[in-house]
C-alpha cells in the first residue's frame, strides 16, 4: 500500500492494519524518517515537501514490484508526507512484511534507496532568514 498524505501517521496503527491481514508474517522491518533540527550546520526551522503525486505513486509502485521480484515479501507499506513539516515531524515510513527477517531487512533498505533516488519529492529547508532546496546524495 502506498499513501501520499499531508497528515501525520501512527506507526503502530499503520503496521497493524497490514499485519492483521496475514498470520504468516514473522518479520517486519520499518524505516521512519524525521525532520531534524540541524542540517549542514544550519538550524532548521521547518521544511516544505513538494511532490509530483501521480508520478510518485507510479514510481513507488514500481519500486515495490521490483522488491517483490527480488525478495519473498508478503506486503509492503510506504507512507510519504508532503506540505509544511516541523522539526521532529515524521516524513516517511517504509515497512516490509515477510515470513523471515532477511527478506524484510533487505527489501526495506532497497525500497528506501530507490525512493530517495527516483521518487519525485523535493525538500526545501527553511532556516532563520533563508531557504534552500535539497538534493539527495548517496
Amino acid at each position, binding site marked *: 500500500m502506498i499513501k501520499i498524505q499531508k497528515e501525520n501517521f501512527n506507526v503502530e496503527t499503520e503496521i497493524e492494519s497490514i499485519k492483521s491481514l496475514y498470520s504468516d508474517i514473522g518479520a517486519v522491518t520499518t524505516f521512519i524518517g524525521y525532520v531534524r533540527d540541524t542540517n549542514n550546520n544550519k538550524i532548521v526551522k521547518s521544511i516544505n515537501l513538494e511532490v509530483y503525486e501521480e508520478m510518485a505513486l507510479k514510481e513507488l509502485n514500481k519500486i515495490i514490484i521490483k522488491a517483490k521480484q527480488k525478495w519473498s515479501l508478503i506486503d509492503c507499506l510506504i507512507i*510519504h508526507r508532503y506540505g509544511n513539516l516541523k522539526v521532529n515531524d515524521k516524513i516517511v515510513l517504509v515497512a516490509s512484511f515477510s515470513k523471515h527477517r532477511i527478506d524484510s531487512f533487505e527489501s526495506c533498505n532497497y525500497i528506501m534507496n530507490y525512493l530517495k*533516488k*527516483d521518487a*519525485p519529492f*523535493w525538500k*526545501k529547508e527553511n532556516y532563520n532568514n533563508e531557504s534552500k*532546496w535539497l538534493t*539527495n546524495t548517496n
Partner: protein
Amino acid sequence: MQIKYFAWIKDITLCDEEKLDDIKINDIENLKLFLINKYPNLKKHIQQKILRFAINKEYISNNSNLKNDDEVAIFPPVSGG
C-alpha cells in the same frame, strides 16, 4: 501539451505549469530549446544535464517524441525520504 515544473525550477519559470498547445514542439530536444529561449536562467541547468524529464509520469533518458496530449514534467534531482 502540458508542461509541469517542480521545486526550484518554479522559481525560474514563475509558474507551476503551462499549456503549450499552439506551439509546435515535437520532441524533448525542441522543448529544451524552447525553454532556454523563454527562460534564459534555465539554460545552464539544462546544459549541465542535471534536470530530469518525465513524459506522462515516466522518466525518459533519451530524446523522445512528444504528442499534443502529453504531460511533460521538468524537475531537479529529487530529495524525498
